[in-house]
């Protein structure tokens, strides 16, 4: 059916097209001023994403780094970091109802979806090491940069002896079918456990120790590494217990520890899986020895749980190593203020970034990613490369060259994608709150020294 006035209508429709294009829903074109050069002339959309467990049992952990990363994107947009290009942010949730928390399958699906979007240039995540196991291969295959703010399992980036332990069994090489695109801004458990062993043996002066783990990837890895370094230091592990996260009472194992003459208890695992409960039960059993945990124990919930027993001040005197106290760095003070300002309307505890140790990690991870994207654009004359794979490769290459000062201090990456900003702080519960005692660093030969 040909309309006789086709010509006129065509002109009218083209005019309408032009008018509507200005306020259309298309996101491929933004105003570009002819004649601008460099990054200001950039046109296109760049998307960055986070993949965190936002609901279920991880709801008190995952959202913090996600919010912090979102803040970084908001600030980058305000500063026009990408010039004329539009910077978008997508938040993915890798928790499912079935698992009541993080789900590796959902994580893999999220990364697959993000990788399928040609405008996505990098993802900050995941939070859990077990999710990383399924996400890293997908990211690698799609050349997509993946920066984790919280994965500490060492086998994700490099092969260490414990990776072939039958209860760990992670083959690092098989995680990278493509290029190595995975990075993390947090030190791995190799350093943390070396420091833990040092603390247990030389600082707490405990020659015999009883080790718990919570049967999850992070906790198990930390406990195994701890045992390795602790026995190398000269200590004796009098007993081990590997209990599921659903355990409600640890009295049986603590009786064993008591009878075996343990001088301290080590807990490899998270508070959600019983770190605080062990302390509570130690109080009930009258076991007056120190408890040492990793960064999974260093949170407010530990204190609440430990004090829930008959002794309401039981938490005092517990120890845990964790990421260096970023609230003490000047650079991070600014960040936490900005966070509080941006998220004051959120319900507690999400309105306070200090309530969770990984908030600043999410912030720095996202900033590092954005910086790398910016550098890749500049290196390409201010325009994104035409092929998304080329762009992603360029971003990954730029991340490798990162030398970034942020809320965590100075971060660079080594050849494996691990951060060189290692060092863990020993915290002690004093008067119902975690207080930093000393920060330790460990060098490549395994020698631990006090940093500050």
């Amino acid at each position, binding site marked *: 059916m040909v309309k006789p006035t086709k010509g006129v209508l065509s002109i009218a429709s083209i005019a309408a097209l032009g008018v*509507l294009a200005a306020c259309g829903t298309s996101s491929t074109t933004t105003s570009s001023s002819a004649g601008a050069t460099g990054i200001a002339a950039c046109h296109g959309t760049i998307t960055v994403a986070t993949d965190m467990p936002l609901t279920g049992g991880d709801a008190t952990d995952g959202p913090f780094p996600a919010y912090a990363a979102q803040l970084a994107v908001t600030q980058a947009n305000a500063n026009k970091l990408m010039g004329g290009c539009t910077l978008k942010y997508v938040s993915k949730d890798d928790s499912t109802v079935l*698992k009541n928390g993080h789900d590796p399958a959902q994580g893999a699906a999220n990364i697959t*979806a993000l*990788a399928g979007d040609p405008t996505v240039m990098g993802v900050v995540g995941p939070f859990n090491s077990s999710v990383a196991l*399924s996400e890293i291969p997908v990211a690698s295959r799609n050349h997509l940069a993946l920066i984790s703010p919280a994965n500490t399992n060492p086998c994700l980036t490099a092969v260490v002896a414990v990776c072939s332990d039958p209860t760990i*069994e992670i083959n690092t090489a098989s995680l990278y079918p493509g290029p190595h695109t995975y990075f993390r801004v947090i030190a791995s458990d190799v350093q943390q456990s070396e420091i833990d062993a040092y603390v247990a043996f030389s600082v707490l002066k405990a020659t015999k120790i009883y080790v718990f783990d919570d049967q999850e990837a992070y906790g198990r890895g930390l406990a195994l590494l701890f045992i390795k370094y602790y026995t190398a230091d000269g200590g004796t592990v009098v007993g081990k217990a590997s209990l599921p996260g659903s355990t409600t009472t640890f009295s049986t194992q603590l009786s064993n520890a008591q009878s075996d003459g343990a001088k301290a208890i080590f807990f490899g695992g998270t508070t959600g899986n019983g770190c605080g409960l062990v302390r509570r039960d130690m109080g009930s059993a009258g076991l007056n020895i120190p408890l040492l945990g990793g960064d999974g124990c260093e949170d407010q919930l530990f204190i609440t749980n430990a004090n829930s027993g008959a002794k309401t001040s039981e938490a005092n005197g517990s120890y845990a190593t964790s990421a260096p106290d970023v609230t003490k760095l000047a650079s991070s003070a600014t960040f936490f203020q900005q966070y509080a300002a941006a998220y004051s309307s959120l319900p507690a505890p999400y309105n306070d970034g200090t309530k969770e140790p990984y908030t600043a990690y999410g912030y720095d991870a996202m900033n590092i990613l954005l910086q790398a994207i910016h550098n890749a654009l500049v290196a390409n004359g201010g325009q994104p490369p035409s092929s998304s794979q080329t762009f992603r490769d360029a971003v990954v290459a730029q991340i490798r060259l990162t030398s970034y000062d942020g809320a965590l201090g100075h971060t660079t990456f080594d050849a494996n994608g691990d951060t060189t900003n290692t060092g863990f702080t020993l915290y002690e519960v004093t008067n119902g709150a975690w207080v930093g005692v000393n920060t330790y660093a460990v060098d490549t030969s395994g020698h631990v020294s006090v940093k500050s």
Partner: protein
Amino acid sequence: MRKRFAAFVSTVPPGGPASAGTGVFWILAATASGFLIIGWLLPWFVGPYDAGVGFSAQDALISPPTGVGTFLIYILAVAMVVLLLSPLAEVVMRLRGRPFGPRADRIRLYLGLAGVVLTGVVWLLYRVIQEEPLFGSVVPGEISDSAIWLTMYGFALAALVYGARKWVVARQTLAFGTALLPFGIFLPLMFHQAPDFLLWAAGSLAIYMLLALGLNVVVGFAGLLDLGYAAFFAIGAYACASFASPIHNIHWPLWILIFIGAAIASLFGAILGAPTLRLRGDYLAIVTLGFGEIIPDLATNNVFNLTGGPNGISGIDQPHWGFMDFSESPRWYYWSLLLVSIAVIILLRNIEQARVGRAWVALREDEVAAAATGINTTTTKLLAFAIGASVSGLAGAFYGSLVTVVTPDDFSFSVSIAVLSIVVLGGIGNIVGVILGAVILTFVIFWVLPNMDSWSTTLSSTVHIPALANINFSSYTYIIYGIALILMMLLRPGGLLPSRARRIELESAEESESLAAVQGIA
């Protein structure tokens, strides 16, 4: 020939013999309507350029009709609205006692066929002839292929359903298969703009469907309550993962793994079924529950150094068959999964109607009487467990290669309950029902529930009720799930599409229930 075609196309007097048996008809009619509306509005659900689906036909109507294309779309819109509302209209008319006649069906058949043709023309116009803007403000080339083809499929499905109503009612399973199989086969091509994620979702759906079909054998066919089905899934997944990963440095191809997974799982199915032989009802359920808890425990504790502890087995190979590298293109993965699923469905259907199937029916109804007629209850029960487990072994093989890491957490009680819910919701003992249940529940669990928060936020800003945005739907999932299960059992215990036997059972139960009420027992 013409007479046969006429007989084929003619319809039963609506509301004819038994209303029972038309379940599939309504499902397909609803599906047709669903495809039409989703195709029409696809990007409204997914978001433009989210998963790369572009604009829908709806967006072409933003401006006044200006091109051939837009005019055609107006016609299509009319046809679509008619077909969309027709199931609803039919229900209403039936309730008023004046059902539609065969002429209405013929009209709808022609509308459907016309819709198919016109949609094809629209697609040709914007794909092949792209010179002038034919669709208002939408630039040609940006319209979503997927949306067009979904709409076309919806029209075709509507034509089939209304045109061949009698056949659909009479040959339910076949109709269901014929209607949806082409959709399944062409799915990767239809959504070629967003391949990976969609095929991932479809793959997960297929895996859950396989699991549900396997459980259906145990619970539906043989009547053995199984609350620990995830244990067989775990065994199948771990077995296949062991043979295709660096953990033992064995790398066997997928097509061998399928059989190995099925064989090992069925062996364990028989082993785990053995202690339950003397048990009935609730006790059987509890023992299976016990096994469902023991198996993941054993896996976590790395029994016999086989299972890799709490990290499970990672780095599982992605299958490749010569030129078909699954890791490059998930289509081949999807198609092989589809093929296996179809094979399983056909096999199970045949088993259901074979001697074993009839033995299961007897066992389910009255075990003592079954034994009295010479059925070997031991072998029959063990077969039920073995066959049910073998299907989940299959699913385990595909699961491992999809997610590349298999951990003990993947096989918790929640998974067993989810699969049981699918079977119960869909229709215990009814293969089509189970498939339907899998589609609905996977859809709800993996798409509706996670997105409810963002939808409520969008909705709240649209209708200006800010309170809506603050409801954290994800924390209500357990509540919703629990209420759904309770309501399902109270109102429709047979499931959405009860099997014929179950329907009869429930009807007689209702009669005896009223009798019991008279007696004052219940």
